[in-house]
């Protein structure tokens, strides 16, 4: 974990610039995630990065382990907390929405992170989980291409079946998968 977190800390500006340099890809990803988040009362993004999803989607709170990223998320108005997905510093049942976008591929223990997401959700609360599919076009493209490879070459991608197993293992039920047809998948899970 330390290696990739340090990389996100040092290259936070580069990471953030990607969204300005690729407005169409960003717009597509944001629309897919927004369709999953819908309406909610209090939401947290786990692995909030620089706030590129939490801010436009109206999630008030963000957890982020890399200080350089957290500073940029704070500038976007997110109440950001330095923290780890596997050991969330959040109270039981405090949220009705948790969001994770391209996060599980970087986690040393994704099963524990999903168990923690379950813990902080109120009964009936939703986890919106967006991930890059192992055999999808994005996974293949970015592994050997440009700025994103700086981060994604450290990632461990999952298939839909593996993600479903992780979701079930955390006691969540997965309602549907949506997909931009290029391997960026979103699923909505209910506690």
């Amino acid at each position, binding site marked *: *974990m*330390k290696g990739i977190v340090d990389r996100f800390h040092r290259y936070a500006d580069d990471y953030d610039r990607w969204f300005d340099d690729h407005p169409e890809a960003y717009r597509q990803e944001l629309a897919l995630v927004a369709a999953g988040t819908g309406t909610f009362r209090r939401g947290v993004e786990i692995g909030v990065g620089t706030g590129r999803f939490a801010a436009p989607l109206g999630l008030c709170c963000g957890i982020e382990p890399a200080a350089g990223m957290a500073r940029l998320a*704070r500038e976007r108005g997110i109440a950001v*907390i330095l*923290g*780890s997905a596997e*050991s969330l*510093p959040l*109270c039981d049942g405090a949220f009705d929405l948790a969001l994770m976008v391209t996060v599980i591929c970087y986690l040393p223990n994704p099963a524990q992170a999903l168990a923690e997401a379950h813990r902080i959700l109120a009964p009936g609360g939703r986890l919106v989980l967006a991930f890059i599919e192992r055999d999808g076009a994005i996974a293949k493209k970015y592994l050997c291409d440009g700025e994103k490879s700086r981060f994604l070459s450290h990632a461990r991608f999952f298939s839909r079946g593996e993600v479903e197993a992780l979701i079930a293992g955390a006691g969540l039920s997965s309602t549907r998968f949506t997909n931009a047809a290029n391997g960026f998948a979103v699923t909505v899970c209910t506690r």
Partner: protein
Amino acid sequence: MRRDLLDILCCPVCKGGLVLTVVEENDEEILEGSLLCEACGASYPICAGIPNLLPPGIE
């Protein structure tokens, strides 16, 4: 961090409640200070408005 954030924060290790100590704040939020876990005694800093609740050893 805003003061009302404390309502949803807990110790990342033992999930105990946190006690806030303020060193510097403005009209909106706490800029410098610390959060002490009542249950296990771990202390977490607040720096430049951002609470650092990474579990000890992760940082």
